[in-house]
């Protein structure tokens, strides 16, 4: 993964560790900008249809589980805090605490996915998966409601995929920290994962009210 022979893990293309760190941070932010545009396009699509089919979307959103969504919001917000703590201890070169809080973050992330899984399962049981088995009453709202759930699954699915990738990256990072791998000697890798993780949380902060809390 990294040229270990180079002092302080500075890759050959960089002048010094400072330049390398800044490059990684700028790179991550640029990547997050593309992510914002990615989610932004789906959000825009959703909003256009929500305005066009307001009543139907309102009816459809009643079928979402607000308590579970709220629990998940709390879970993710807490995980942002624990991720911030992970970065905090990484900057102070305290691998034990770092590992602890990283594990808590992973556990919260997985809890989020489990709750999401229950929600998806309920939707499946209730016949709210778009497609041939989709059922919705009143029948008049069948089509816009299916559109709502199409967008619901597209948006939360895309988000859940990002959470899952986050968990996998954190798992790799945890192993590297545990074995004291040289690539995680400085805090930059953890900082980058942290940036990504906060982004994933922020997306949810937008998703939750957009989907679960539609005003009448």
């Amino acid at each position: 993964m990294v040229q270990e022979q180079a002092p302080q893990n500075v890759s050959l293309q960089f002048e010094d560790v400072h330049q390398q760190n800044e490059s990684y941070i700028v790179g991550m932010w640029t990547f997050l900008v593309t992510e914002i545009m990615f989610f932004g396009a789906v959000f825009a699509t959703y909003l256009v249809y929500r305005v066009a089919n307001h009543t139907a979307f309102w009816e459809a959103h009643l079928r979402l589980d607000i308590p579970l969504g709220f629990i998940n919001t709390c879970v993710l917000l807490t995980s942002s805090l624990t991720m911030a703590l992970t970065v905090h201890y990484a900057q102070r070169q305290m691998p034990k605490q770092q590992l602890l809080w990283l594990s808590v973050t992973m556990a919260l992330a997985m809890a989020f996915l489990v709750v999401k899984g229950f929600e998806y399962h309920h939707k499946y049981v209730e016949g709210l998966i778009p497609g041939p088995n989709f059922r919705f009453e009143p029948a008049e709202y069948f089509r816009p409601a299916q559109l709502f759930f199409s967008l619901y699954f597209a948006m939360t699915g895309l988000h859940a995929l990002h959470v899952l990738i986050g968990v996998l990256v954190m798992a790799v990072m945890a192993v590297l920290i545990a074995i004291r791998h040289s690539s995680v000697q400085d805090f930059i890798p953890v900082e980058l994962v942290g940036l990504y993780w906060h982004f994933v949380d922020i997306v949810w902060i937008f998703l939750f009210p957009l989907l679960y809390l539609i005003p009448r």
Partner: protein
Amino acid sequence: MKGVQLLPEQASTFASQVDLLFWFLVAVTVFFTVLIGALVVYFALRYRRGSTASRAGAKETDLRLEISWSLIPLTIGLIVFVWAAKLYASAYGPPPENALEIFVIGKQWMWHVQHPNGIRENNELHIPAGRPVKLTMISQDVIHSFFVPAFRIKRDVLPGKYNVVWFTATKPGKYHLFCAEYCGTQHSRMIGWVYVLEPADYEKWLASGGEARPYATASGAGTMAGVSTASLKEAGEKLYTQLRCNACHGATDGQRGPTHYGLFGKKVKMRDGTVVTADEEYIRESILRPLAKVVDGYEPIMPSYEGLLNEERVLQLVAYIKSLESSTKVAEVKP
């Protein structure tokens, strides 16, 4: 190979106005292309390596030049913008009141035209010269685009939504009708002819039910005119009765539904407080998706007719509902 054509015909009031702007833009294009091209070539030769031309006073930048060659294109751009926008607003704004109303349905891969008096045409459109014509258009499948080069007009024909275009033809003759939005395999065969007739010829054509076609011999491939026995309105009335629309929509606002008499063009207040103008689009939506907009004071109980009516039949209903004026006698409604 027929003779070479270099200029399109001008056959609508809009055409000559567009062409004036077009040729102005051509002049701008030629002027700047020649100017820049000549300068580039002249500089390349005059200041070629080894030439003795003086290079004294060469500059690296000049604010006055930069400002002027920003402002000149900007000014030309703004002039053209205003010119074009005014022209467009006049041509694509609301059609005149006295416009002749014709309905067009696009489908893969033909144009279907319905005249108010019941004449139906495929891939042909007969219209009188000198009178505004308003086309209300919808597609039954994918996006098409109604394009008559001689009129300089083009309007996409969308599925699920009426689009309107209007024009006044000026010169009798036979003109190309194209589908301009790619619509699948036979896109380039989704063509037809627009026949502009002298008003007298047009009356003859109407009276003969579409049979007296002065240009018939030259008609394009696969075109045919057909006449239904009933006018569009009459067909709509029949359907209206058949579907028992009048059970809920009576001569006056009833318990279950508002009246359709005098509805067209009126501003209607909805349950959610918004106000909607009852145009063709609104009537179509209310037939197919009645609960999308529910009139204030009524319960959302009307069933949807989506999937039960094709665009042709929806058009007939729309034409009939449009024709119901508030003064129309109650007696005319046959239960």
